[in-house]
């Protein structure tokens, strides 16, 4: 139950163990993996940085919301910070419930909310030598007219690192 950061690889075995419950019949987990590409650019590695104090509070609020909104038993989110390579796990969400539908819905709710609301930032380093803070760069350039505080999934490069 809750939301936590880790500087070391996420321990999904321990995370899952926290959700076990003899009265639960369904368990859904989500893992976010570092992809080798993003919006057409080849990614080499990336770094996550968080505003810890507020991020944990906001993450915990999301878990509490999910437990209130969906009839699930337990829910937990673990988020990695620091440097990550391709294929490494950046985030894990696990939910257990009596029936499966609620676990799917709550898990989806949590990961969507974490991506949109929790103060965590991601700097991507590209194979071509560029780097960029996801969602923060091109959109701020002159002529960019989109303001998208709550729209993730939209990355823009471009400081030379």
């Amino acid at each position, binding site marked *: 139950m809750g939301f936590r950061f880790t500087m070391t690889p996420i321990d999904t075995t321990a995370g899952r163990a926290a959700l076990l419950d003899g009265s639960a019949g369904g368990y859904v987990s989500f893992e976010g993996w570092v992809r080798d590409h993003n919006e057409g650019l080849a990614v080499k590695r990336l770094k*996550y940085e968080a505003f810890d104090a507020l991020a944990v509070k906001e993450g915990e609020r999301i878990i509490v919301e999910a437990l209130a909104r969906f009839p699930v038993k337990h829910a937990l989110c673990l988020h990695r910070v620091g440097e990550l390579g391709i294929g490494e796990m950046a*985030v894990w969400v696990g939910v257990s419930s009596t029936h499966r539908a609620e676990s799917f819905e709550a898990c989806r709710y949590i990961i969507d909310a974490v991506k949109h609301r929790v*103060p965590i*930032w991601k700097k991507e380093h590209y194979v071509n030598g560029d780097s960029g803070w996801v969602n923060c760069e091109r959109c701020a350039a002159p002529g960019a007219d989109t303001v998208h505080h709550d729209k993730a999934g939209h990355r823009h490069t471009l400081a030379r690192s």
Partner: protein
Amino acid sequence: MLINLQYFAILREQAGRPNESLETRAATPAALYAELAKRYPFTLAPEQLKVAINGEFADFAHSLRTGDAVVFIPPVAGG
């Protein structure tokens, strides 16, 4: 009044520092960001930011008080 600022991600890089204490006459986060944007090469428009005061999300029109810890929050990208 004295405001304690902490910078993250792109704002930290553009400010060239992780934090600072600043003597300012800015009465709100909106005014404070405008002041900082003159000093640092910030590229994010204020509409792209959120702000936290003393560890909680706050409004850009909130009245600042001396000693407040202020963090401007660039667009997030967790997960």
